């Protein structure tokens, strides 16, 4: 089987496109180049092989939903639900991503060069060595890291002007696990009430160094320079934010 195959997405629906991807992946293809992608959904779902997919165009919603292993590189923007309930693999987006990036992800990594929409990283979780990571180069909309139960979320704010703050409100609302590292200005009122603010410790810097390093290499940044900035750590104040609601 050929190491690299090219698939043309022109004029075909999601189901057909994904069937082609599945066939290619299951035949042992190492790398797939996907041309002319116009909003087809679920790319990367159910491939079950660590294949690399390079997308030229605009993949549709649920890119990499339930994905387990592949590496996806998008030369364009991703839409909503990218990395939905992802189990393993990597998604690298040379552009923006829409809402609920990494919803309920339980593993794998997502790198977005520019901005993301609402509720990025919502309800990500972790279990032992399965620990999802999301790195966002730009800024995010409201409810970043909502309900977060695990994993690492990094917001770099590289497109913010000097002194400009992130616009997102309700950051980390309902967060009860995982960690958020932010670069750039935020004010107290922008944070959810379940979130605490702390300085980074040595372990935090180790994590940050690894992930920011990967981000830098994907998008041609100088990692050293990115790491020189000041970061803030957001962490869940309670493992059980809603433990005291009830009368028994």
């Amino acid at each position, binding site marked *: 089987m050929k190491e690299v195959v090219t698939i043309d997405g022109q004029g075909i629906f999601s189901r057909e496109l994904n069937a082609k991807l599945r066939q290619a992946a299951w035949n042992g293809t190492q790398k797939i180049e996907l041309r002319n992608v116009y909003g087809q959904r679920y790319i990367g779902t159910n491939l079950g092989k660590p294949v690399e997919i390079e997308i030229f165009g605009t993949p549709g919603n649920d890119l990499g939903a339930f994905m387990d292993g592949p590496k996806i590189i998008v030369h364009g923007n991703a839409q909503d639900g990218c990395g939905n*309930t992802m189990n393993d693999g990597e998604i690298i987006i040379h552009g923006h991503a829409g809402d609920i990036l990494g919803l309920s992800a339980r593993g794998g990594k997502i790198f977005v060069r520019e901005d993301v929409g609402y509720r990025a990283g919502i309800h990500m979780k972790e279990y032992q060595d399965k620990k999802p990571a999301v790195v966002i180069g730009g800024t995010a909309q409201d409810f970043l890291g909502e309900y977060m139960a695990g994993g690492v979320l990094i917001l770099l704010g590289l497109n913010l002007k000097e002194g400009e703050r992130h616009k997102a409100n309700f950051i980390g609302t309902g967060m009860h696990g995982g960690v958020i590292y932010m670069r750039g200005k935020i004010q107290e009122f922008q944070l959810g009430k379940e979130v605490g603010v702390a300085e980074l410790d040595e372990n935090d810097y180790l994590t940050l160094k690894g992930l920011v390093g990967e981000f830098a290499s994907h998008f041609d940044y100088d990692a050293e320079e990115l790491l020189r900035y000041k970061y803030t750590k957001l962490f869940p104040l309670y493992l059980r934010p809603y433990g005291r609601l*009830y*009368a028994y």
Partner: protein
Amino acid sequence: MKTYLPPKFIVERDDSRCIRCEVCVNQCTFDVHSYDIEDDELKSREENCVGCHRCVVFCPTEALTIRRNPLDYRENYNWRPEVIEDIIKQSETGGMLLTGMGNDKSYRIYWDHLVLNASQVTNPSIDPLREPMELTTYLGQKPDRVEFSSVGLKTELAPQVKLEVPVMFSAMSYGAVSLNVQESLARAATEMGTLWNTGEGGLHPKLYKYGDNTTVQVASGRFGVHPEYLDVARIVEIKIGQGAKPGIGGHLPGEKVSAEVARTRMIPRGTDALSPAPQHDIYSIEDLAQLVYALKEATNYTKPVAVKIAAVHNSAAIASGMVRAGADIIVLDGLRGATGAAPKIIRDNVGIPIELALASVDDRLRQEGIRNQASVVIAGGIRNSGDVAKAIALGADAIYIGTAALVALGCTICQQCHTGKCAWGICTPDPWLTKRVNPDIGARRLSNLLRGWSLELKDILGGMGINALESLRGNRLHLRGVGLTDTELEILGVRMAGS
């Protein structure tokens, strides 16, 4: 703070029968019984009794009687004891009242106002003891028409699931119920040719081997959802809502997240497992379609995808949207659907009776000409095969039972599931208590129940002169209403008895 709550039950111990064996002490998980070695006497803390009757059943000399405390407050229809006690509880804790099981209020049970038909003289009844009777049910999308070629069926069928009995076990997650309970359900389902449902708690690896008889749930928390989980299942069910708590998420408290539960849900031990109220990728019918097809993609279009909602005011319109969103099976969970934990105020006040929801959904889908595109499964308080037969005549393809299955395993509906102290070992993570449900015996009790209902269903069908359940499905002429208003009859689509 001194509690103003009076005991709900009175424990009567016949001292002439009591042999001081302390079985009651060991069986009670609510610390009611204790043995005083100095006085050689068994004592009771009646204020702790929940009325589960575990001690009564296991007392070897039948020395125990548990009675309701009459609580003879001054009579007041508005301020009943339950109302007073709820206020006391809240004034002492400041919390939402939590409860377990289904709505216990006296909303009309329509099954009890529907009667079935039988053949007399003008058409013969069938004796199911000697003639073949078929209960086989296929769940899944049915084609608008079928075409045959010279070699056979030409039409490509959507994935179908065959049930030998039209009764499945409702979603009960590992964490809410114990693994032994799930294993009992899985084994009984496998033996009887039906399905059990994981609920939103993942699937323990020990139960993968029952995959062909397993429905796995994908709900708002997405706990334990990974490729293998979807692969192993027979049906994938998206849970939007639940009859006991429509519109509400779920909080599995950290105490119940043991190492094994953590492993199955894939979250750290001891953290709360929070299922948000909405699924954050579903804010519309179009979004639902997106998840339905995400799951179809994830399973390569080999399994039906079900969507479960709580029965609410607009169920019929919502159901139409669900079918159009690509659901192969729609599940309606009614007002009396049960739960391991829900705010009492929601459980007792939100949702509509399943009988009305079923009738209106079935009607609506027929009117729109899309009834064949999805099977309809109902849940919520189904008690016996009579309810099952009536539900099928009203239009259901199959029925989920949850409470009835738990009762088969010992549950006495004491409504303490949320405490995690279930004395019957059903709704608890306590490893010492979960041993009280032995999967060998549990599976047998559940299989027996389904066998009994199957025999009864065949008898009911035979009496009607029908030899296949398919002929009863949606056949409301076999039903008549008793003691119902014109509006109720109209919604149910049945005629008054005698007419």
